[in-house]
């Protein structure tokens, strides 16, 4: 399946919890439903918390990729 093109992206490497989630949330609020946000976050606490919070906000995580010591998430705004 072809990857959907992100309409926006955020590099949140080095950004601590919960600031990383808040930035993600604010970005998603600016976007249109169905658009994709690409996010880079660190492993450890950020990857343990941010996806859960995004899910609880009702958005959809359509792709998770581990690259070295960080993660790349593709989030679809719902």
């Amino acid at each position, binding site marked *: 399946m072809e990857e959907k093109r992100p309409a926006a992206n955020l590099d949140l490497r080095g950004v601590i919890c919960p600031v990383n989630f808040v930035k993600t949330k604010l970005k998603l609020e600016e976007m249109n439903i169905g658009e994709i946000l690409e996010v880079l976050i660190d*492993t*450890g606490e950020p*990857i*343990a*918390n941010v*996806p*859960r919070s995004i*899910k*609880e906000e009702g958005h*959809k*995580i*359509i792709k*998770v*990729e*581990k690259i070295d010591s960080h*993660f790349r998430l593709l989030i679809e705004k719902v």
Partner: protein
Amino acid sequence: MKDKNIDIRYDHNLEEQKKSKLEIEMKRGKKEVFNLDQLKSGGYIRQRQKDLFTVRLRCPGGRVPVEKLKKIAEAASKYSKRDYVHISVRQSIEIPYVDYKDFSQLSDELGEVGQKIASCGPRVRVPTACSGCEYNPNGLVDVQKLCQEIDQKYFGIQCNHKFKISLSGCPIDCFRTNEMDLGFQGAVEPIWDEDTCTGCRICGYACREGAITNDVQTGKPVIDRSKCLYCADCIRACPANSWKEGRKGLVVRVGGRHGRHPMNGAVIAVFLPEEKMGKVIEKVLEWYNKEGKDKGRVRIGDILRDKWTGFVDFIKPVLGDCAVKNPKKPEYIKIHSFQTGWML
């Protein structure tokens, strides 16, 4: 205002329940009889100050409707000789510095909004609980609902000693169910669905117990059930909803307490269905009252330590499949380590 013509002498025999009535001599020559036993069960707690009591209100689960709160504030400013209320460690509002002569008026006024007085003494106390799954993101079970149910059905039942029940919505156990005569804590068993799993590894990071490890190549998880706390972090974190809820219910702990010599309650069941909670409470109280007969003021934890196997045999049929195999009896938690001479 305080009536200077009334003299009340506190009698320690009342606390031991050797006497239940106290004659109050009014200096005008009139005599009145107060039933202090009833007062004690009603949650009126004697203060150091002569004639003054703390009135403990019944606030199950610490949930106080705003209408009641307004009335409480109004009554406190009217009947307390101080300008504050106290929040007890068991979530109830206490109105201090109330003159005993104002008891009936205070209770009538609170009664207008359905606010009841709590209890103290040897009986089932007002149950406590966290906010549970209703709005707390960690909550797994609606412990507020269960707490109100316990309050309605079991509050005030007579026992040998105090009997405290508490509920926590998840394994973080903010309401310390291990320190209660009977405690219920929410738990959910995670079940993995291989077909939908994308091998993203998020569950391995989300698990705070180290119970989930992800395969180096595929990223697919392996769970070590011996490490799982049943907190559902993996279920909440999984973007593909591949971790699903399996068995869901209550971890049951019995025989715990805090105080001078705290005891760690024993886990007797895991994933007890909510609808069986009432039955468990009834059976535990039945056992306590039977075994406690003629033993006086003794907590259930102490009796359990003596008669553990008997209790386990008694309670097992009620717990069914949820019963823990070979449960261990409650154990003392030593907090006063300097007290080296203390014997069990």
